[in-house]
């Protein structure tokens, strides 16, 4: 049985700006849900709330039929940021950071890290200084770091923005390879082609509201919402 996440009437304001306005959404394991929208639409805010980094002003988040707070979300989810952040450590220690916190035995960590590096095609990078790697390599390390935690909710905030096509392809393949009934993958992007390639379900967010939820073929060929149609055709003013 796959896992299930339900958002109900999520609202979030930053002073007078409504970042999210009554967002309701259901997600289940085994799928890649792509949050699509222009810059400032509210994608990143939703991702930050799902990661437990921020609390919604109102609304509920239910994971597997249980009401969930930010602390629990931090435990069951992992977020890969758009801007890659590395600790001032070597690659191995960067990857081991979350595992050590979860008190995984050293031997187990030593076994898992080469596997994670292999998944992002960076085998043998363990001793390299993480901050000295290229942007694409750092993002792949960030992805491997997230994979290692084996979280129920994998959140990706524009993970391939500003990366070369080769790195982007490797990252996309690695993400698709992580699909499982026990994992919900949520990826925020404004890249239509990427959404088409990767999504099992596309959620179009505009102005803090969900305007359309559809499978990729329906989303691109038969959009029901006028805003979505304009967005796809590049006619949306924002």
């Amino acid at each position, binding site marked *: 049985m796959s896992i299930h996440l339900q958002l109900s009437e999520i609202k979030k304001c930053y002073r007078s700006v409504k970042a999210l306005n009554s967002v309701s959404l259901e997600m289940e394991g085994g799928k890649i849900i792509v949050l699509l929208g222009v810059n400032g639409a509210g994608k990143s805010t939703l991702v930050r709330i799902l990661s437990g980094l921020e609390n919604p002003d109102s609304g509920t988040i239910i994971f597997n039929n249980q009401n969930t707070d930010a602390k629990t979300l931090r435990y069951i*989810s992992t977020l890969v940021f758009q801007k890659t952040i590395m600790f001032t450590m070597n690659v191995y220690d960067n990857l081991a950071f979350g595992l050590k916190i979860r008190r995984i035995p050293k031997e187990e960590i030593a076994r898992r890290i080469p596997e994670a590096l292999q998944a992002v095609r960076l085998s043998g990078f363990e001793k390299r200084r993480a901050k000295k790697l290229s942007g694409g390599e750092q993002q792949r390390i960030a992805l491997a770091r997230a994979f290692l935690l084996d979280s129920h909710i994998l959140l990706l905030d524009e993970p391939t923005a500003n990366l070369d096509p080769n790195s982007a392809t490797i990252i996309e393949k690695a993400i698709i390879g992580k699909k499982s009934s026990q994992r919900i993958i949520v990826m925020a992007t404004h890249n239509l082609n990427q959404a088409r390639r990767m999504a099992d379900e596309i959620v179009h967010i505009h102005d803090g509201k969900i305007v359309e939820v559809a499978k990729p073929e329906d989303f691109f060929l038969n959009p029901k919402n006028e805003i979505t149609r304009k967005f796809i055709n590049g006619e949306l003013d924002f």
Partner: protein
Amino acid sequence: MADIIVGAFQQALNLIASGDPEVYATIYRTIYVSGLGTLISCLWSIPLAVALGLYNFRGKWIIKGIFNALIGIPTVALGLLLFLLWSRQGEFGFLNLMYTLNGMAIGQAILVTPIIVSFTANALGNADAQLRDLAKTLGASGLRTNVTLVRETFWSMILSITSAFNRGFGELGIATIIGGSLAGETRVLTTSIALDLNRGFFDIAMAYGVILMAIVIVLALTVSLIERVKDERGEIRKFILWKGLFGG
């Protein structure tokens, strides 16, 4: 002018080469006072800086502002204040800190506190907000997140401590008023310079100045070198502190 500077360098080398015990004792006393003063200051400055840098509370900006303002406190003014408190008739006269190296070290510890607090608190406060988010999303508790941020700003902290040492090393007010520049007891490099200048031994004063500058520069270069090696080799820091302090 160039002759004077070259002469000062020669004189400095002669002083060092002469093996004069008083020269070495003066250098040792200067390093002892500033080193001990900086270490003592770290005991309260680092925790204070961590609190100011990582936690938010009402009135924080006022405290930070006060520390920022005190960075430039005149050493003579602080020396005079401490003299009033520590002299025999003062409130803390019973501590017998006047005209002692330890008294000078405590005075310097107070002097350099704003430097360590302000520089370290600013470094921690400016640590990338995403670094904090990253630690949290990887499951770090509040304490672990803060320890991670402290660790990430380790070299900024070292830099602030080095700056504090240098400030103490080159100060004259406290050394003169609290130490009294007693020959063979509390005379340090800065008071030696002032004394020899007053006595008309300009070349010796300059030579002491060269030694003072050389020590400060060598220290700064050493710190930079260690940081550079750490950047390239990556593992130096582990040898120094963190295994012991944070088990990481």
